[in-house]
């Protein structure tokens, strides 16, 4: 089959360029989706989130991208949310109490606890609670780059991996074709590239290298 049309959702705040480059290094072409029609045309979507939960959701709603995203996700198009792009899948966040998330996961995104360094900034490891195609071939000692002050503390059975920083925080989620990572795969060297490569496999409908 042809390569999947992979859209990077553009809302004028995230750093799309580094995600673009990371996919380009894997030989994958992407395009920027700034209009609902761009999202509808995609086979798979990545939403690189940087910054503020409320700012992201306001920007999506202002550009009428939230409905198109919900439709694409509901239609089973593979979706990968990065950092705040993961957080926006939840119902709410302490970061913007009056602005609802997409509510795909009912939990709240909480401020990180105060007994540890915040922001949670730097390279940390994952603690997997179940298998996932997204982490196929990646060993438990791999490090990923995190940079955030808020995180979900649970996502029910969608939780694939936690990261322990003070309390355990949700680092990877999977439900059907919906994926999210709290870390930045585009900034996580070879282990991050492996995550993006696995997402490309999922987007292409290729069989997973590692079943659960």
């Amino acid at each position, binding site marked *: 089959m042809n390569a999947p049309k992979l859209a990077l959702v553009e809302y004028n705040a995230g750093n799309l360029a580094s995600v673009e480059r990371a996919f380009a290094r894997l030989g994958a072409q992407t395009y920027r989706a700034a209009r609902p029609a761009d999202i509808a045309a995609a086979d798979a979507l990545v939403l690189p989130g940087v910054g503020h939960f409320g700012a992201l959701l306001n920007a999506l709603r202002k550009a009428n991208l939230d409905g198109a995203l919900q439709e694409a996700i509901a239609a089973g198009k593979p979706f990968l949310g990065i950092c705040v792009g993961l957080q926006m899948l939840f119902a709410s966040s302490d970061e913007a109490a009056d602005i609802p998330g997409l509510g795909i996961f009912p939990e709240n995104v909480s401020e990180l606890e105060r007994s540890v*360094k915040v*922001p949670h*900034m730097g390279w940390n490891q994952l603690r997997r609670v179940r298998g996932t195609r997204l982490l196929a071939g990646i060993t438990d000692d791999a490090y990923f780059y995190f940079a*955030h*002050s808020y995180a979900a503390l649970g996502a029910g059975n969608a939780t694939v991996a936690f990261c322990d920083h003070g309390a355990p925080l949700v680092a990877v989620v999977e439900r059907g074709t919906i994926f999210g990572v709290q870390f930045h795969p585009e900034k996580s*060297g*070879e282990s991050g590239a492996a995550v993006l490569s696995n997402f490309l496999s999922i987007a292409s409908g290729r069989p997973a290298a590692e079943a659960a």
Partner: protein
Amino acid sequence: MGLACRLIPCLDTDGERVVKGVRFQNLRDAGDPAELAARYDHEGADELVVLDIAASRDHRPTFLSTIERVAEQLAIPLTAGGGVKTVVEARAILRAGADKVTVNTAALTRPTLLSEIAAEFGAQAVVLAIDAKRCGDHWEAFVRGGRETSGRDALEWAAEGAESGAGEILLTSMDRDGTRSGFDCALTSAVASRVRVPVIASGGADKPADFLQVFREGHADAALAASIFHEDVQRLGELKEFLSEQGVVVRRSR
């Protein structure tokens, strides 16, 4: 295991080329920033910092294209800065491909600059650079490339800066910078215990034992160095191997 202690090479540039010198004196050419960036990414650097030490407005477009060239080489985070005075300048640096921007002198004059950048890009994108120098029984924050004191107590300024929106502190010891006599662990530890945000120790790196000491006794979250990496006095892979043998958690990579 928890967060790994980070090793961060720093590229001081005149906007276009990497330069080296002691305390901004006798600057000499030390290579192409994009080439060095590619090398450090490959050798296992955890992040990269690129500073424009000329920081004159005339050179800023050149520096922005340098950031773009460097960012293209990296699969790790990039911090950039030097003389940033406004949100507009910070935005340009982040848009050029940096993940974080450093702010120094201008924040001491106008601390709201930190909160303004944080409001738009998040605290994780704001690095407060503090050049600290011992003055009697305390440290003071110096400005204008370390040439004059701001009169502010460095510890108090670190605490205020973190409160104002800085997500990280890049702490340079003016006393140790360029001396290769080891990091200032007393200073680093004092700041690290005062703030909740991560602290990057800078100034004085020479031997592997210096890094061990600044992580153990200085409680640094990251350690930054320039010339010892550029001149191959230390190699990142060997340094990480040493630290790992000593029980420091580091990210091992190929």
